[in-house]
């Protein structure tokens, strides 16, 4: 299931001239309001993600990192402040189908075969059947699931279902990737393989990405930049110093990487003590 063969860049694979994208948070605050109570989830977030940057958001449970992602997706509306998601000069109305979202839990429709799941986004957009079949085939092959097109989700392993989710995200060719711990529920080996494959896919496309994870090593391996969150705020904004393309299998054992990984751990501890940089 390696992608080295399928990742050839041919005319069919080359994405259309990619749009210039970016997103911006300006003094964003969100109160979670329940029947009896209101809780401040994130407070006064301000940051910018330029075109084609891969940002990882890390932090402990309940720090608000998923809320950040859900606000970008338009699933949660900020109580105060401004969120701007741009494609070229257009500011998107959220939620928008130009954003691709992927969860930790697999969310394939259980009554649809893998192929029909991957083509869902294209089907609801009204893409003609022939065209979407062809495209879906390509992405299913890209994530290493060729041959399983007709299987139902329950017939696939957890790792394969996450590959299916990834193919579904890629198939709509969104301008942004929003990912919430997409590989966190996988066993160590599958996880490492999928990180490597996703990293290659990403490097071929370089779509603006917000990637939430509690796994600091994963953040360091995949991202260009890591936002370390304390409770409800960004404590540290750390650029990742490794060049692309990255071979994750090698990179993770280099001394430089281990030093950086350690730095992230220190920053996370500091953030949880309430310090900020």
């Amino acid at each position, binding site marked *: 299931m390696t992608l080295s063969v399928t990742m050839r860049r041919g005319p069919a694979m080359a994405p259309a001239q990619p749009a210039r994208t970016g997103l911006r948070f300006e003094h964003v605050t969100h109160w979670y309001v329940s029947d009896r109570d209101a809780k401040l989830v994130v407070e006064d977030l301000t940051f910018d993600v330029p075109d084609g940057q891969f940002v990882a958001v890390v932090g402990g449970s309940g720090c608000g990192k998923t809320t950040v992602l859900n606000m970008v*997706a338009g*699933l949660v509306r900020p109580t105060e402040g401004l969120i701007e998601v741009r494609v070229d000069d257009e500011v998107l109305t959220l*939620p928008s*189908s130009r*954003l691709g*979202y992927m*969860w930790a*839990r697999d*969310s394939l*429709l*259980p*009554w*649809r075969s893998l192929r029909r799941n991957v083509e*869902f*986004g294209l*089907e*609801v*957009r009204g893409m003609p059947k022939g065209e979407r079949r062809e495209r879906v085939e390509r992405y299913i092959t890209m994530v290493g699931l060729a041959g399983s097109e007709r299987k*139902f*989700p*329950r017939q696939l392993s957890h790792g394969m279902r996450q590959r299916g989710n990834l193919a*579904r995200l890629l198939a*709509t060719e969104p301008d942004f990737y929003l990912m919430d711990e997409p590989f966190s529920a996988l066993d160590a080996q599958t996880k490492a393989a999928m990180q490597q494959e996703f990293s290659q896919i990403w490097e071929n496309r370089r779509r603006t990405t917000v990637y939430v994870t509690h796994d600091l090593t994963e953040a360091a391996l995949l991202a260009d930049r890591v936002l370390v969150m304390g409770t409800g705020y960004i404590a540290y904004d750390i650029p990742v110093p490794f060049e692309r393309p990255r071979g994750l299998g090698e990179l993770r054992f280099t001394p430089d990487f281990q030093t950086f990984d350690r730095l992230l751990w220190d920053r996370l501890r500091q953030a949880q003590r309430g310090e900020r940089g």
Partner: protein
Amino acid sequence: MTTPATTAAAVARPEAPRLSDRDGRMEAAKAAVRRRKRNRTLTVRALQVLLVVVILGSWEIMSRTGVLPDAKLFYGRPSGVAQFLVDNRSHLWTDALATIYAAFLGFAIGASSGVLVGLLFGRWPLLERAFDPVMNVLASLPRLALAPLFLLWFGISDTSKVLLAVSIVFFVVLFNTIAGVRSVDSELRTVASLLGASPRQVFIKVVLPGAVPVIFAALRLALMFSMLGVVGSEMIAAKSGLGVDVVTYGQNLEPNGVFAVLAILAVVAALFSAALRTLESRLLRWMPEHS
């Protein structure tokens, strides 16, 4: 005293299987598992048949030996039931058809309207909340008590029977359809709408198929309830039907006749249910228990 030859024979082990024989060994393993499964199924079937034979046999014996007092008037016996079925076959056949026809109609009307209204409520929850009190009151009425009203309005007719069945089936299916719509994982809806599906597409492509398993469970119940409604209505007043027969035979002290009708009802219910199961296993291929 053992000779070297016998020692060798005693420790002789089966030859280590050759690699080339893998296919043969796999086939043998598969055959062994299949054989075990088949034997088990046969055992279960034999036990099931045995149980029925024991029940009917002891009934027959107790009836003939007088353990059951005045069995002819009160308890009947299997051989008598069989005889009754043969003797009255044309009459029972006509009445069975009348009952089946009404039950099927009641099921079809009640279930389709129940699903339809349930889906409307699922699509527009405000509507459901508005209707909630009315529906709850109607649903908690013992519906058999409506029979006199239907008889008053529609006379002793098929309409009265069918309506009573509908009044029961509708609510069973309605509430289960609403529950089915609610049971659909909200994450799946969110995913679908993030992928660009309109609210209508989310409903048709996600909510509807997601609710099907629960709706089907309700349909199986609804079939039984439809029979209950029709037979109940016939027992109160009808021109023909198994419900009429069962009352008549009871009043005439013909237990064999009553049991004959019950046997027919059981067979009809089993056939209905089998038909529904066939349909269900086609639609729900994606669920583990239907593969």
